[in-house]
Structures are given as C-alpha cells and as structure tokens.
C-alpha cells in the first residue's frame, strides 16, 4: 500500500510545477500584506484632492508630508519588523530626544567634534537596544513592559543629565558643513535630506526582509517562536538585533533633527510611539506577528503623513485630523483583516 502512494504523485508533480511558474496576477496583489495600505493611500490621496487642493501634490506641499514620512518612516521600519517578530518597542519615544540631546550636548555645548557627537548618539542607541533586547530575551517579560520601563528611564536620564550638565533643557548645535550636508540640509529649500536616507533605507530593508534569507527568519519567529528555535534559528540573537536596530534608528532620527534645526529639546518624540505603530498597522503588519511587508509599512507611513499634513490643505479645522486618523486606522485594520483571510483561504483554481 505504501508503494502506491509513493509512485502515483510523481507524475502529478511534474504537471503542476510547470503550470504555476508564471508569477503575476491582479488577484495575487490583493493577497499581499501591502494591499490594504496601497488602497488606503489611494483613498487618502483622493480625499485630500477632493476636499483640499492640488497644492499638496506640488513640491512645497509634497515636502510637508514627505518630511514627516521620512522622519517617521526610518523608525517605523524597525518597529514593523519587531512587530512581525512578535515584539514591540515603545522606548523609541525617548530615544529620539536622547539622540538629539547627545549630539547637541557633546558637539554643541562642549564643542567637541561633530563626529564624536554622532558616534555617541548612535552608540547610545545601540546600548539602549541591547538593554531592551537582553531584558526581553532573558526575562520573558513582555516587550511592551520592558520598553515602557526604558522609555521612562531614558527620558528621565536625558532630562536629569542635560539639566545637570548644561543647566537647560534645550541646547543649541552648530554643525559643520559636511555633517549639515549629510544629515541636516534642506534640499531645494524644502525637502529635508533625511528623505533620501529614508528612500535608501527602504531599498535596503526590502532586500534584507524579502530577498535575503534573514527576512525569512523574522517571519518564522513571529509565526511560532518555539518552532523557529527548533528549526535552528538564533531567535534570541535576532530579537536583540532588532531592538538594537530600532533604538539606533530612533537615535539616528533624533541626531538628524538636532543637526537640521540647530538645536535639541529634551521632550520631542513621544508622538513617534503611536504614529509609528499606526503607520505599521495601516501598512498591513499583523499586531500579533508573523505577517507584513516593508512596502506595506512604506505606504502606511506615507498614508499617515498625508493625513497628518493634508488637513492644512483643506478648509477643515485641523482639530479634525485625529478623527480622520482614527477612522483611517480602523478602516485599514478591517481591510487588512479581510485581505489576510483572502490570502489564507486562497487556493489555485483547477484548470
């Protein structure tokens, strides 16, 4: 009886592998994690074109939301990856001002070389990420709680240290030309240079997450951590690496803002916590892990930024923008749920 089962399917195998080599279909697009984000972006653009004006697509208008998207997007990618892997990091809310203040205090207040300030700012990101990651891996305390702790600890540390060292909570920074050029210039007077960093990082993340083998590990970890570990994936190290990535990205954004605005404040960044989570979820990442995409997060971030800034191009009072964001989030989540169950129940039609 077993020899029958072994020989019969071989012939079937050959016919089917040749029939599904062709890759692209419209139905296939809707089963991808970014389908909801793409439609959401489309809807949001249409909304602001109807109720606002075409101005928000012209360079000056586009810059307003691209600047928001770029700053948010650089943090949203690692937050999204952590969410795919089944973790959360809210300490980025204080890592952004921590990154700003570190570079401003070292290179602005103490007038040490800017590169030292930049290195220290990023090193602080690596350090806080290691603390987050190691605590999460070692203690099995949910990462929301661990990073809630570091959120407050880092915020307090930054406030305390800057008052102790400089006597104020706001420090000026005059960056030399090269650093300004790389991290803090306005291209064509309106576009923050960080937009280009964001686009380059998008390409890098798409490669790492969707084309390199490591991306597979992140999804497997979020899908079933124990099975992933049993399959030989170094889940602890990967988790720690993702936390380091998110803290360091937040420090990077803070550092760029300090150089751009020639100053740093102790309290700037708490809004990034919710905004990045919204972008990631609108982008089709499953809150409980295992599902999502970089392109989705990219679209989700732009969608958020357009809603956030688009209100200024309409005649509405800007107080309504939170309502729009809330409704958009709910719609996006419902849509993403629908698309995900479509993807799950999908099976190829018999020809």
């Amino acid at each position, binding site marked *: 009886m077993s020899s029958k089962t072994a020989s019969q399917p071989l012939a079937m195998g050959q016919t089917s*592998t040749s029939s599904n080599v062709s890759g692209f279909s419209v139905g296939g697009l809707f089963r991808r994690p970014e389908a909801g984000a793409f439609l959401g972006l489309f809807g949001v653009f249409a909304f602001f074109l109807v109720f606002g004006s075409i101005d928000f697509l012209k360079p000056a208008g586009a810059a307003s939301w691209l600047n928001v998207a770029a700053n948010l997007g650089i943090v949203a990618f690692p937050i999204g990856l952590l969410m795919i892997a089944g973790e959360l990091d809210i300490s980025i809310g204080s890592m952004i001002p921590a990154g700003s203040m570190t570079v401003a205090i070292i290179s602005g207040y103490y007038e040490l070389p800017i590169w030292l300030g930049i290195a220290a700012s990023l090193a602080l990101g690596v350090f806080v990420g290691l603390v987050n990651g190691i605590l999460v891996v070692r203690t099995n305390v949910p990462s929301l709680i661990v990073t809630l702790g570091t959120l407050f600890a880092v915020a307090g540390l930054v406030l305390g240290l800057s008052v102790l060292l400089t006597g104020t909570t706001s420090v000026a920074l005059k960056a030399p030309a090269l650093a300004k050029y790389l991290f803090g210039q306005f291209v064509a007077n309106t576009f923050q240079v960080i937009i280009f960093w964001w686009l380059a990082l998008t390409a890098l993340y798409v*490669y790492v997450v969707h*084309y390199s083998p490591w991306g597979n590990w992140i999804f497997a970890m979020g899908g*079933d951590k124990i099975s992933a570990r049993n399959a030989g994936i170094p889940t602890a190290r990967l988790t720690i690496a993702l936390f380091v990535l998110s803290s360091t990205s937040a420090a990077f954004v803070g550092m760029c803002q300090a150089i751009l605005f020639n100053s740093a404040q102790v309290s700037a960044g708490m809004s990034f916590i919710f905004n990045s989570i919204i972008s990631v979820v609108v982008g089709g990442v*499953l809150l409980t892990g*295992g*599902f999502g995409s970089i392109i989705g997060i990219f679209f989700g971030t732009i969608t958020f930024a357009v809603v956030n800034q688009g209100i200024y191009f309409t005649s509405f009072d800007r107080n309504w923008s939170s309502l729009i964001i809330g409704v958009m989030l709910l719609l996006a989540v419902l849509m993403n749920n629908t698309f995900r169950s479509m993807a799950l129940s999908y099976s190829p039609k018999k020809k």
Partner: protein
Amino acid sequence: MSAPILKLRNICKSFGPIDVLNDISLDICPGEVLCLLGDNGAGKSTLIKTLSGVYRPTSGTMEMDGKAVEFNGPRDASSRGIATVHQFGGTFPLMSIGRSFFVGVEPTRGWGPFKVFDRKKANEIAIHAIQDFGITRIDDGDRLVGGLSGGERQSLAIARAVHFGAKVLILDEPTAALGVKQATHVLRIVNEAKRRGLAVVFITHQVMHAMAVGDHFAVLIRGAIAADFRKGEKTREEITDLMAGGETMAELEAQIDGYMTAHDGHAPQIAGAAV
C-alpha cells in the same frame, strides 16, 4: 531487526525538584516505527525533547551509530539527522509553503553579499517533496500554510523532515485533532518514511493508530518505562490497559456502567475523560 541508530541508556530528566523521566533505556532502529505510549503527563514529550536536543538529560547517556553523543541544542540534533515535528507546532501559518519549508536553511541564488532567497526553487522543491508523499492537492508553493488542513500541515512538516535527510523522525502526536481520513493520510506517510529506512518515533494516544504503524512499543507511566514489547506480543486490550496507566480498561468500563445505571443512563460528566 538491524542495529539501533539511537540508544538511550538510563536517561533521567528533572526540572528542579520534579523528576519527569526516570531511568529510560530504549533502542531506536532504522526502518522501524517505535510507538511511545502513555497517559497525559507521562513524560512522552519530555523524552522526545531530550532526544531532539531541546533539553539535556540530567543523567544517562545517548549513543548514535554506536558513538556517545550529546546535543548542544536542536540545531545540533537536526544536523545529525534527528528531525522532530513537535506537538502543536512545526509550521508557520502566515508563511508561504515554500518559505516555511526552508526556514533556517533558505536556498539562495546570486553571489557574494547579494544572495537572494530563491523563491522559485524553494517552492518547486517543497511542492515536489509533499507530492512525493501523496498529498497531490498541494500544487502552489505560494499558498499560505494556514490555509492547509491539519493533516496537510502535519504532512508538510513530515515531508520537510524527510527532505532534509532525517535519519530519525520524531513525531509528537501527529494524528491528534485529525479526522479519520486525515489521520489515515498521516499514518500512510509514517509508513512511507519507514519504508525509506528512517527510524520513526511516533507518539499517540490512539491504540488503533499505534497498532497500524508500530513495530515496537514502549509505554511510559509516570516517567518510567512500564512495558517494552514488539508487534504481536500484546493484544489491543492489553495495550489499552497499559496506556490508561495500568488500570484495566475493564475496571473503568465497569465503573462507567455502574454510574450509568445509577444515573438513569446518563454518562458521567468528567472533563478530559475522552481519549
């Protein structure tokens, strides 16, 4: 019976003060199915986690192909050819068939630092491996694993283990929660793996399933081996009694009958009495 591929000698395992495994000695032979039987909490999963490198034994030795071995984790065990499909796991519902098949051993194409995941190759190999086991309904490697039935998911996990050159295949309750037809399918795959010369360790609570594929049976009661016998040496009733932890099934049935007559034919409402 050929020479055992894996030999356990006096394996004990405790978690702190709790002794879960007690002096286990077993031989696992290629081309044979060893059925590991026992009640809930008898230590079956713990034993196979020790075999697959998830836990280290507290004492005792393991020999593989006649040489003493110690596993430094699941990856070490699987690289030596011990593949395990764990209870409640092994597949990733929201990943595609092709991607989940190759988790941890992703095929790549390209060169240097620009290696990319070879989706087409992964899908082709995965689909071929599954169809080889007779699951011909699966023919698209981009489908998500969560869209497959329970039996298909188990089959996928087994096909994966066999594909990666497993010599010992460990299955923790692969037929639990499956319907009759799906379970039959999994049993057929177990037989096919045996035919290919793998040593299979098969855990089940179903006597019928055990008798359908087993060559060699070991019954665990509270972490110790209570019986170790070969096919045909015991009747179905005897095996059932052993699996119930030594209480004879006849006694249990008598209790239930007594209860039913005392309660107007209603069966007792005991949670977890099934299986």
